[in-house]
């Protein structure tokens, strides 16, 4: 077994036993990136030399201590909307093509303090607006399981890179499913923590009230380790939760006896792919066998989630993206007649069409005369969606659903129909609106070999319960051990 096939906790054990160095691991991943990224396009920026330097630094710590952090010396990738000091951070957009943040995001500070090794910045939909990674200015990411298919989005690079073993773990962000949906598409574990768990300081905003950073990992154990590393209060983020962070690895118990797993009927609807439904039903059966109690719950406002989301997220985005005006950083048009022309040309040339579409929608729903009809109404329905979850969680510990209605669709299949594209997020959006945590874990494959994702959602700040449920399922299955074969390597 190659080093790059190993999980974080396995590599940590090897580093502890001094069987391998961080530099060796890092070189192997960098080599793997070189071999595969022409086909996958997961990375926007690869940090060869800086990664080796960081690995050497980590090795010094490792050689002088037996008790170092699980992340020390571990190569990881970062979605290219998390600010990294001195390293270009594009957000998948032309408008930030040359932008080099002068500061580290709070999560990056945490990872650097643990001497993790950042191997590169990962491709994504432009400004995290997309479900297929096809809106990136830096080209589409391909699904490692089938290069004709999308990797999911917007954290497509984060999902594909872990799935294809180009890095050990990665960070992504989830605004409406942008971690869980690509994790499902690529057959890896992707966790969106509770809103406020992970500092957003330095995360380039799409929709501030929904955005949350989370990890992609090869298994649930690594997910718990990553959560331990990135969660916690940050005084620089007003929305960061002042909550104690438990040791999430304590939830890796392989015991779900008596755990109540809620199944919302609203998630098993027409339009859900039959293979997906079969796989998810099999998972439910598996949980029964493991001793969990399956209960029916209702999330009656689920069908409104996409509408609410596309009002709130685009409204916030239209404002968040106003700062890209060519004055302080980023792209500025070459030829502007005057100030007004500079604004218009910079933004028209700098943003792609999906971003423009959402800025337009968000501007419209906030504009004079429409605020009450759209934005305020959406905020009220958001309350109803939150109440749904509150009521459901009175009856269960976690909620189980498919991550998406279908497995990864084909590249280009939905690019001309934005609404159909938006509807592919129908199962993941509610968790963002309600602020709850959610994880996608692999639960099977379609007949043509594409992974199927199982979503587990938990109460606010109860990531431990979904880790516990996810871990028990994983221990009773092999899906997480299957590695995609990238053709013609």
């Amino acid at each position, binding site marked *: 077994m190659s080093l790059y096939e190993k999980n974080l906790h396995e590599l940590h054990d090897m580093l502890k036993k001094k069987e391998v160095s961080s530099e060796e691991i890092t070189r192997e991943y960098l080599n793997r990136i070189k071999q595969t990224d022409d086909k996958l396009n997961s990375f926007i920026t690869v940090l060869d030399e800086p990664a080796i330097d960081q690995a050497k630094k980590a090795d010094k710590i490792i050689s002088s201590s037996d008790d170092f952090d699980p992340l020390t010396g571990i190569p990881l990738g970062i979605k290219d909307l*998390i600010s990294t000091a001195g390293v270009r951070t594009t957000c998948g957009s032309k408008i930030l093509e040359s932008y080099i943040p*002068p500061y580290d995001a709070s999560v990056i500070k945490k990872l650097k303090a643990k001497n993790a090794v950042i191997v590169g910045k990962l491709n994504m939909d432009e400004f995290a607006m997309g479900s297929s990674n096809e809106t990136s200015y830096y080209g589409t990411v391909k699904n490692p399981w089938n290069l004709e298919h999308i990797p999911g989005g917007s954290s497509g690079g984060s999902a594909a890179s872990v799935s294809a073993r180009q890095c050990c773990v990665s960070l992504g962000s989830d605004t409406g499913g942008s971690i869980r949906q690509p994790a499902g598409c690529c057959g890896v574990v992707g966790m969106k923590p509770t809103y406020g768990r992970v500092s*957003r300081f*330095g995360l380039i*905003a799409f929709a501030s009230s929904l955005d949350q950073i989370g990890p992609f990992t090869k298994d649930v154990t690594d997910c718990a380790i990553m959560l331990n590393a990135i969660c916690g209060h940050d005084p620089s983020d007003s*929305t960061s939760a002042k909550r104690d962070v438990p040791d999430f690895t304590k939830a890796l118990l392989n015991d779900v006896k008596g755990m109540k797993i809620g199944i919302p009927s609203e998630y098993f609807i027409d339009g859900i792919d039959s293979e997906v439904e079969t796989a998810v039903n099999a998972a439910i059966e598996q949980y029964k066998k493991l001793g969990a109690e399956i209960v029916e719950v209702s999330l009656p406002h689920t069908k409104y989630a996409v509408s609410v989301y596309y009002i709130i997220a685009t409204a916030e985005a239209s404002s968040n993206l106003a*700062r890209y005006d060519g004055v302080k950083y980023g792209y500025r048009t070459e030829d502007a007649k005057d100030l007004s022309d500079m604004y218009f040309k910079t933004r028209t040339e700098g943003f792609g069409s999906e971003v423009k579409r959402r800025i337009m929608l968000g501007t419209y729903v906030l504009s004079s005369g429409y605020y009450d009809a759209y934005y305020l109404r959406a905020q009220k329905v958001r309350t109803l969606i939150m109440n749904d979850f509150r009521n459901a969680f009175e009856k269960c510990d976690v909620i189980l659903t498919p991550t998406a209605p279908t497995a990864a669709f084909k590249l280009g299949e939905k690019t001309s129909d934005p609404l159909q594209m938006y509807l592919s997020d129908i199962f993941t959006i509610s968790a963002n609106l309600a602020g709850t945590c959610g994880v996608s874990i692999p639960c099977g494959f379609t007949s043509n070999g594409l992974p199927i994702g199982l979503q587990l959602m938990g109460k606010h700040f109860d990531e431990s319960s979904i880790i516990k449920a996810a871990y028990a399922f994983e221990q009773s299955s092999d899906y997480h051990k299957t590695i995609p074969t990238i053709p013609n390597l």
Partner: protein
Amino acid sequence: MEFEAVIGLEVHAQLLTNTKIFCNCSTKFGNAPNENTCTVCLGLPGALPVLNKKVVDYAMMMALATECKIAPYSIFARKNYFYPDLPKGYQISQFELPIAEHGKVHIDLGDYKKTIGVTRIHMEEDAGKLVHDGVGSDPNSSYVDLNRACVPLIEIVSEPDMRTAQEAVAYLKKIRQVLVYLGVCDGNMDQGSLRCDANISIRPVGQVELGTRSEMKNMNSFKFIEKAIEYEIKRQIHVVKSGEEVVQETRQYDSHKDITLSLRSKEHAHDYRYFPDPDLVPLRIDDAWIEEMRSALCELPDAKVARFVEQYKIPEYDAEVLSSSRSLADYYEETVKHIDAPKAVSNWIMGDILRELKNDKLDINECPITPKMLADMIKLITDGTISSKIAKTVFEEMYTTKKAPKVIVEEKGLVQVTDTGAIEKMINEVIAANPGQLEQYRSGKDRLFGFFVGQVMKASRGKANPKIVNDILRDKLKG
């Protein structure tokens, strides 16, 4: 038809905090361009705001001082528009649910008093500064300095309760006075720490509905505000009388030409798309916090005036002048502590002291005469050591040399002559030297009495006790 003006003011006051409203950059004025900036106030991607508690404290103090009701729950909103001095493309302000509403301010126009309603007070961040001239090499460029971006402001919005330019100025002066009293704003209009926009409309006297208003932007002195409003009222009356309609628009005062000019009409009105800022959390203010701020308030101008009238039995006018600033009021009270002559002290401060300070462009804090010195000098008058006239000389000497009044009196031999024998001798000499005037006086020209007093005072080099001079002189002139 007779018209009346309806005026409402929006006052922006920069708060005297150490740091900006949403980041810990310094608010220091006059630093090199973009020196007071960081990830947050530059609006860098990913940077997030955190509210400065002091800003809330100060806003609450002003709210309490203007009798506003403080909202138990308030939120910040984003006001979206593009401008190079606005780094995020939106200004964080309060829109719905501001921190305070429904206050009032009392103004005194001399002839009458009036209460002006305060609609609301809200907190917001300032924008940066655009420099067009005097920097850089390119006349076709503007230059952006973001030092001021994110500096805390409160906006105080009045009801349209003012009817004349004088009322507007009196209101603004009162707002400024209270802000400076509280120590929450330096009130400096030149540097832009205090800015004022006015909404002005006219209507026929007796009409209830408001006319179409124009908005006057950024007037930076009391004088210009008064002139601008006066001009604008006249202009609108002229427009209506010529059978046209007033257009809703933003106008600017041109102080060189003493006219107002249209900046932009509301056709190009902004659509600010306000919505709650998702990066900030709501503000919950409980009674304990309000009481904490209330107890931190100093005595306010209105209360001080009332107390001065009551405690020192001085006229209201004196009390108002003395209370115009906290430091002047403190100076007065300190002086009165040393000598129990409240009206005399008031006269000296309002007259000689304020005149000298004004000539030298000094603040009362920089006055060369300390309250103790002033009190000592007044004591010398009341105990008869010097005359009021001599006191003027002592005062001038004190002001320039900072010497104690007693020292000046001794050094210059200015002690008042009260010896009747000596005075009588001088009077005899004066009468003997002016036989013509004496004759005229005795034949009925009473006004010449003053002439003889003057001559005697001159002979005594001002030191003769005027009362004794009067008494003896009157007697002697009778013959």
